[in-house]
């Protein structure tokens, strides 16, 4: 993929009202020129594994149309489901080393759970922009090589106190790196 000139890294740090870093917040940047579906990929696997009766990763970012596999590494069986608008599906009881997959065709947040294990929660953020990443334990993330220009930044977190658990802000990206601290309100 051609990298346009005058692109810069956008560095964001997400904190909550108390100043504590917010982990697993998904930051997406929409540029003036939207990316075509299927034109980009993320450098991480589109897989939501079940390990130690947990979804791993907790938050997975995938592009629209991506096929996500749900490999089970546990000795027990899981019944993965989602009632989210973006993707309603159900992968009924499947066992160890069994893998199922589901194709996410609509952008949005998909909350997935296990009908057997209530404690298992995972989120798949289906995005329609290549400029997306999630915050690490220190609340920081870097979205590299964002072309300069007017952008809309969206911050999503499953516990965010906002409609659809996300908030947006418009930001002009100029040549060079950009650093910004964003404060969000969590439940």
């Amino acid at each position, binding site marked *: 993929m051609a990298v346009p000139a005058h692109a810069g890294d956008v560095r964001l740090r997400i904190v909550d009202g108390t100043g504590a870093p917010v982990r697993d917040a998904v930051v997406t940047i929409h540029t003036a020129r939207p990316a075509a579906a299927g034109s980009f990929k993320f450098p991480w696997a589109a897989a939501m594994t079940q390990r130690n009766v947990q979804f791993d990763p907790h938050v997975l970012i995938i592009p629209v149309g991506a096929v996500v596999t749900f490999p089970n590494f546990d000795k027990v069986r899981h019944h993965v489901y989602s009632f989210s608008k973006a993707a*309603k599906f159900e992968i009924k009881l499947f066992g160890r080393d069994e893998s199922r997959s589901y194709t996410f065709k609509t952008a949005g947040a998909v909350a997935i*759970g296990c009908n057997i294990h*209530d404690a298992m929660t995972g989120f798949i953020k289906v995005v329609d922009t290549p400029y997306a990443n999630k915050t690490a334990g220190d609340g920081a993330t870097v979205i590299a090589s964002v072309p300069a220009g007017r952008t809309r930044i969206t911050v999503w977190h499953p516990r965010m106190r906002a409609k659809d658990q996300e908030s947006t802000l418009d930001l002009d990206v100029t040549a060079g790196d950009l650093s910004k601290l964003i404060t969000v309100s969590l439940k």
Partner: protein
Amino acid sequence: MNLIARLRRFVLGSLSAKLTLFYAALFAAATILVLGGAKVGITSYAERMIAGEMEAGGKVFDRVAATRYDQLGDAGRVLAADFGFRSAIATDDKPTIESALDSLRSRLGLSQAFFVSSEGQVAGYRGTLSAKDAETLRASLDNGATRGVLLLGDRRFNAAAASVDVPVTVGWLVLGNALDAREMANLSRLSAIELKPRIVSAAELPAGVQPHATAAATERSVSGERVLIRARPIQSFDAAAPQILLLEHSLTRALAAYTPMLWQLAACGLIGVLIAVAGSWLLARRLSRPIAALDAAARRVSQGEYAQVAVETSDEIGTLAASFNRMVDDIGERERQITHMALHDSLTGLANRTLLREHLTTVLSRDSGSTKRALFCLDLDNFKVVNDTLGHPTGDALLCEIAERLTAFANGGFVARLGGDEFAIVIDDSTGSLDRSASELIRAVAKPCHVNGHRIVPGTSIGIAVLGVDGNDPVALVKNADLALYRAKHDGRGGFRFFESAMDAEAQARRQMELDLHDAIQNGELSLMYQPLFNLNEGRVSAFEALLRWNHPVRGSVSPVDFIPLAEDTGLIIPIGEWVIREACRTARSWPDHVRIAVNVSAVQFRNPGLNSVILQALSESGLPPGRLELEITESLFIDNVEATLSSLHSLRALGVRVALDDFGTGYSSLSYLRSFPFDKIKIDRSFIMDLLGSDSATAIIKSITSLAEALGMETTAEGVEHVEQMDILREQGCSHIQGFYFSRPITPEAVTAMLADGAREQAAA
């Protein structure tokens, strides 16, 4: 006197009443204290109990509510976790949702089971729910409320919520039980006392009551009753509108429940007071009865009776009673001693005059039958001499000896000592005639005895008065016996005399004369007559003898023979003699220098130590030279004490006065006196002169007297010369002076002056 004053006097006067009142008051005070303490204790106990019940009630409510919430929550969570239900929620399948909720509601018998979505949509609520309530509920659920009291409109529920997670929370399942009157009544039954539990909002709280989880109850007055109110915040869905559990209990009614107990206590206290009254009255009576008995006994003792109290106990009261009895006995013993002392003579132990009088009264009151009884009064002869010469201890010892003799003689009869050396015996004639008894008594007393190493021969005279004859009362008897004794002594010692009525008359006469004589000096009834003494050698009057005369206005001229002994007996002779000396000296002052005045001095006067100064004063007042005063004394002066008499005579002589021996020849041993004292003159007794004419021997005696006087350098005066023959003999026999009727009777001072004037003329003529 009004009732209070009478009661007051009774209480003050009665130890029992005092003690009873004291203990009753004490017990009443204790009872009141106990009642007060019980009331305070009960009140505080009731308050604590109510407060405790309220706290327990609050906790019970919490526990019950928590259990309900748990049940509701559990049920809610079961449905909320159901995949099919979640699927219906996720797909917004309302009919399925509502039927599931209906099913749950009927299965669990719930008032409400409904779903609230995150967006605020409510499904399955029975009844109408206002938008405000719905939003409030949603906000509470969104803020995490899971259980508590849920206020929807005016209805309250115990409610629990369960989130519907798919897996993110998309809404909440709310289950609720109505908190209606029945539910509150059920709750109320869980506490021991009626707490009237109510759940109210903060705004509905009574004024002044603050909700607090642990604070004590607040006391409020509600329509006149004391009410304890406790407001306890309870879990509430809406944090902004906290719900409060209000518990109330009437303290007034709770305390009223204890009122019967207090009344019972008061009744017990009253009974206790009555028991204390009765008990302390009994005890006080036990204490005061012996005191009253002691008081009564003491009164009897003070009235002279003999009284003892019964000693019933061995405690202090018993000891007091014993001491009292001992005291009464001791007082009686002392009274007997005092009575004995009052009725007996301390020296001899014989009865005294008082007891004699009592005894006589007793004896007189008894019929003596044929026996004759008499009172013997004794007087020791010359007892004074024993005291004077041998001393009083010997005198007392002699009296004791006499007392013993009299007691032995009386042989059980009554013997008394009347004082001094006077005794009395009551004797009857059962053992012999009274004369014989008197003689024997005199002999018994007169036996010689040895006292204090001295041999003494006592003697006594006895006067006898016969009881019933010589008097019917003790006073008359004693007086008459005394009169008889006086006569016995007068008649010569060592004899006895019976009383005769004449004695009484004599005594009366003597007494009257005594009184008259006493007044005679004051009234000027006394006068002096002067009998001249004629000097045969010089042939003129050389002296006058002053002779006392008493001219009583009624008695007339009283003879010196009658009144001089009386004056000597009574001591009147002292002032009379003094008057005589003064009067004589005063009169003699006007006479010629060679004429002396002669004054008789009686034995009583002579023994009076004031005689010298009387003479000195008379001489100095009259200015009469001492040599012109001649004192005439009789031999009797020498009988008692020769030495003392001589000493007195010498001291008189030293004054310069002359001393003449009167009545010479009548005494016992005149010659020895002549040798002892250089008399200036001897007066020859008239008995010799009267014999001169009939007896030669009388002449011889005169001759020898004049010879003796001449030899001793003394003048001689012959008394009682009545005839010229007598004078001739006397002149012949050498007598220097004569005195008598032949020459002159006693004459008045005026006659003296005339006689002296005549004499002077004769002398001048001669």
